[in-house]
């Protein structure tokens, strides 16, 4: 089956008074690896289940290509889905699990054998074909679930936190397997996760969700470097939020006052004066001779970098990462330091949380 683009238009799902999905519009390109990312309860799984057909669409439309699928029953949508708990049929062997969808489609026996074998080959579990699910490890079950979902050549592949039950090492390994497989097959894939690192690693594009709404859509680098609002900045990676005062009449050449230290020459996209906020990642902060005054509260050696927790004079605590290879010594707790930031890599928000630069 040919892969489609997925268009979601003003989709709404309500449970009583609660809007689980509160009007979402998304355009997912054909062949794209698209991730819905957000904390638990943000509506990402609800939206995925609406696409799959397990939840009704209360308002708005979802279409595959030109076809609106609101009223198409789940078993006729031609979707492959990988469930969080894998949902491997316990009474069927690995082979029959993978063959299930093909049998439902009345594919001939010869072709089923051929296609299942290819699918098992692709997820590297050919030798397990005759095994029963209770004889498989978590990672192997995951591979069965994956093979079962894509062997039917779905128009869209859906994955609901497929890696959350695996241990950390296997998770990274499976992540790579899934990404390569998706590239190779070119199936439009919608992936749900609450793990921002996973989302950044695996996706072509990410939609960050919160309270049933989309906070930002963009490529991983875009979301990481240019978060459009405080929520995204806080949710993706680690961000320090520093209170600041924005001064100067010329917004092309403004001054940021952070804890009585002035950073000049800041370009803002619009005129603004008064209280604001800076979001800056720990790796864009450096210890230097000049800068915001503070005191090291806690230093933690983490191998490739050292993490400092620094209490600034304005009472805010920030996190600063220094690469071990750049550091001469690990600075002790209680030491007075000065912190500088790379002003090209900070995001400045006004009091309402809108981006100013």
């Amino acid at each position, binding site marked *: 089956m040919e892969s489609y683009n997925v268009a979601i238009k003003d989709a709404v799902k309500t449970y009583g008074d609660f809007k689980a999905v509160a009007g979402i519009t998304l355009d997912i390109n054909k062949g794209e690896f698209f991730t819905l990312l957000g904390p638990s309860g943000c509506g990402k799984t609800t939206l995925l289940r609406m696409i*799959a*057909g*397990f939840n009704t669409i209360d308002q708005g439309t979802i279409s595959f290509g030109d076809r609106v699928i609101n009223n198409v029953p*789940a*078993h*006729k949508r*031609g*979707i*492959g*889905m990988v*469930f*969080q*708990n894998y*949902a491997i*049929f*316990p*009474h*069927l062997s690995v082979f029959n699990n993978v063959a*299930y*969808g093909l049998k*439902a*489609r009345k594919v001939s026996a010869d072709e089923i054998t051929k296609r299942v074998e290819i699918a098992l080959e692709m997820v590297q579990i050919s030798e397990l074909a005759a095994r029963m699910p209770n004889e498989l490890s978590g990672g192997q079950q995951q591979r069965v679930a994956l093979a*079962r979902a894509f062997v*039917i050549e779905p128009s869209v592949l859906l994955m609901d936190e497929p890696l959350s039950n695996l241990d950390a090492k296997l998770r990274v390994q499976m992540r790579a397997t899934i990404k390569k497989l998706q590239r190779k097959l070119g199936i439009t894939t919608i992936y749900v996760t609450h793990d921002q690192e996973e989302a950044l690693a695996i996706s072509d594009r990410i939609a960050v969700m919160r309270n049933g709404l989309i906070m930002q859509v963009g490529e991983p680098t875009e979301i990481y470097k240019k978060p459009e609002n405080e929520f995204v900045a806080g949710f993706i990676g680690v961000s320090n939020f520093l209170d600041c005062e924005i001064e100067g009449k010329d917004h092309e050449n403004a001054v940021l006052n952070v804890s009585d230290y002035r950073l000049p020459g800041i370009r803002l996209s619009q005129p603004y004066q008064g209280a604001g906020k800076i979001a800056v990642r720990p790796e864009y902060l450096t210890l230097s001779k000049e800068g915001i005054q503070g005191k090291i509260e806690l230093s933690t050696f983490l191998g490739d970098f050292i993490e400092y927790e620094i209490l600034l004079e304005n009472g805010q605590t920030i996190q600063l990462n220094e690469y071990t290879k750049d550091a001469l010594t690990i600075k002790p707790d209680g030491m007075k330091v000065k912190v500088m930031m790379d002003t090209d890599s900070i995001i400045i928000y006004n009091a309402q949380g809108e981006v100013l630069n």
Partner: protein
Amino acid sequence: MMKLLGFRKPKVDFWFFVKVIVILAMLFFLVYPFSTLITRSFFSKKVDGMTFDNYATFFSKKYYLDALKNTLYITFFSSLTCLLVGAPMAYLMTRYNIFGKKIIYVCIILALMSPPFIGAYSWILLFGRAGFVTKLFASIGIKTPTIYGPGGIILVFTLHLYPYVYLYVSGALSSIDSSLEEAGENLGSSKIRRLFTVTLPVVMPSILAGVVMVFMTSLADFGTPMLLGEGKTRVLPVLVYDAYMSEIGGDANMASTLSVIVVACSLSVLLL
């Protein structure tokens, strides 16, 4: 020496006494009566010493073989009808919102709580020869089907024992991982196909457990076939009773033999 044989000196604590008491209770209440039963089945009044005489009698006389046949016939069909009533009912009750669900549930449990022969007796009061319904219909010239005989016994067993199947299956259905059915749906199976390829196979162990319970209970029940069989439809538990209480002086050894055969029947079903 103790060590060489792999024995360790048992630790005498609370759990040691619990173990001892449990083992003694098992020996006294289970092993002793059962072994007596088996031993007695190998003795006969006619022959001295141990003999297979009773068993030979059993397998050669039509009287006994007919009873065995009746027993198996009735238990088999009771199990089947219980399955056909209990399983679909469990499916409907767990998957759909049915009006008065709680009351229906209580009624089902109620059926299980009363002994089957009470049911048999009430059916006789309604459909027996002098039964209320029989008379009512007879007065307008309609002949009602008889409640006596194998059919009636199966009917009463079905109405009393299907809750076993119902309870086992509804328990399994309500705890089945719903994502399994969703996976089936997602892979292109219609509702009916999903039922047969996913739901039923997954709950099959529970269905079988329920059916085995019905089989064993109906195999061992005495009251219902006694009341409804009227000495014409003989089943093994009734023969056991007759052998003990026979007017000509009971034959306890033959009764033991019959009991052993009943136990063997239910055991073979359990092990299957």
